[in-house]
């Protein structure tokens, strides 16, 4: 039992560390990608190619003056960024970071907790994330913050519906809610055993899911909650120092977790083509699989950034039109289609 606890603690610690590390370097990657897409060089002063930039940014955030407005609700003002950070970190528990490792006669799973209601848990945690933004915006006692918070909550709640509906079609297909099992079902792929990733069977569902993921992460083209051009800084207008850092950081953690969920649900998770034809032993394949999963996640993080520096922001009415009048009917149609095909195949 104690061995189990230690192993889980190590796993939790490493996932926590990796998540923070990836989020920190996402901020660096964001600036680099932005620069490269605009024919610039980007940050290159802190260390070679500027790789110590996240450390410098973190130091700056910590040493900045911490301002709490007099008119704000102090408890909620501090609670907001904490909640945003907490919920962002919580979703990482369910991601299967790799297949099992066999050491001696013990089997170690690289997933912290394989809940049988996995996806529901992810959705539940993600939807709590909106409270961090709402509370922060409201507690600031500032019109711009409040407007940003209202936009954020309206947007996140609207797009959660379409996101949930797009997942239902996937669940009809896989027959399970557990992320671990969904990953395992997509094993193999191209190679000896033909077993495609879910994106091949669910292209429409994937499209809806990724659009909603953009909206859930408040990323461009859905970055209305913090659009500088209209709302100064949106919900984090009044925040300074590390509290602002937490809000910005939570966004990158959300991006990382979303990329991980997309990779797991639609792009085979830790599985890669020809994995069963290489003739390697189980542990090696597991380790390669974890690397492959991180490659997929990195691609999706890059995709998030790529889109950000390509598409301008939606107008508020366009956002609501897209969410309620296009994505939700499309998702329902997708459920209907998937159900029909499943019945016909039986």
């Amino acid at each position, binding site marked *: 039992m104690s061995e189990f606890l230690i192993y889980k603690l190590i796993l939790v610690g490493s996932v926590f560390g990796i998540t923070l590390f990836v989020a920190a370097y996402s901020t660096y990657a964001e600036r680099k990608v932005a620069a*490269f897409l605009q*024919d610039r*060089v980007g940050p*290159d002063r802190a260390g070679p190619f500027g790789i110590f930039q996240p450390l410098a940014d973190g130091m700056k955030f910590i040493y900045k003056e911490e301002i709490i407005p007099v008119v704000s609700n102090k408890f909620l003002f501090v609670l907001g960024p904490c909640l945003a950070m907490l919920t962002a970190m919580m979703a990482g528990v369910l991601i299967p970071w790799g297949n099992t490792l066999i050491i001696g006669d013990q089997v170690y799973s690289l997933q912290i907790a394989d809940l049988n209601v996995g996806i529901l848990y992810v959705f539940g945690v993600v939807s709590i994330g909106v409270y961090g933004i709402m509370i922060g915006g409201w507690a600031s006692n500032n019109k711009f913050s409040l407007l940003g918070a209202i936009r954020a909550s309206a947007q996140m709640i609207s797009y959660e519906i379409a996101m949930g509906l797009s997942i239902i079609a996937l669940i009809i297909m896989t027959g399970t809610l557990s992320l671990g099992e969904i990953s395992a079902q997509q094993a193999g792929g191209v190679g000896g055993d033909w077993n495609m990733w879910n994106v091949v069977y669910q292209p429409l569902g994937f499209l809806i899911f990724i659009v909603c993921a953009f909206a859930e992460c408040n990323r461009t083209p859905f970055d209305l909650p913090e659009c500088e051009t209209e709302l100064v800084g949106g919900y984090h207008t009044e925040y300074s120092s590390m509290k602002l850092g937490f809000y910005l950081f939570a966004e990158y953690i959300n991006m990382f977790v979303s990329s991980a969920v997309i990779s797991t649900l639609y792009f085979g998770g830790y599985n890669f083509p020809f994995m069963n034809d290489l003739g390697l032993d189980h542990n090696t394949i597991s380790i390669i699989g974890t690397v492959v999963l991180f490659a997929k996640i990195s691609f999706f993080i890059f995709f998030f950034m790529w*889109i950000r520096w*390509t598409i301008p922001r939606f107008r508020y009415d366009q956002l609501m039109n897209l969410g309620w009048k296009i994505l939700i009917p499309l998702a329902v149609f997708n459920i209907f289609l998937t159900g029909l095909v499943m019945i016909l195949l039986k």
Partner: protein
Amino acid sequence: MLTNRSKLVVKKEMTFAEKIYLPAILSGVAITIKHLFRKKATVKYPEKQREISDVWRGQHVLKRDDKGAERCTACGLCAVSCPAEAITMVAAERKKGEENLYREEKYAATYEINMLRCIFCGLCEEACPKEAIFLTDRIVSTDYGRNGFIYGKDKLVESVDERVDVTKRQTPAVLAFKQQKRLSHNK
């Protein structure tokens, strides 16, 4: 409508392809990914400097004549011509025995240019009847305070052994212009 260049704005309904956004997004994404591999326009400044023109207008210099005496006679024409009002000076009379220091009988005891005000237009150089002030190809360096940008004679006057070359700015057009000003007294 005079030029026939004004366009009539038509608010037409979006087609289906436009309504689903995706084709437009894909073409946009294709454009941005091309830029990822393009040559960067950035010049990494302190290590690399941009090539500058021969007639670049940078930090000023107050010239000395061949014998090492300051040419400036503190007439104030540069200060008058300066559109940014960046130049101030205090004139003084040359004493006996200072002939090797100042060429004219009147000279500038203090001469200050505020580099934050200066717009580097070169009008001071154009106005100067004594060919005393020139703009050079040197770049005004940065500073943490405002006082550091007020350049006095210590920074502006060239030293006797290290003359500042301003011949590059003397293009044929400039020389022709100076011919017109008939600066015979400068010979």
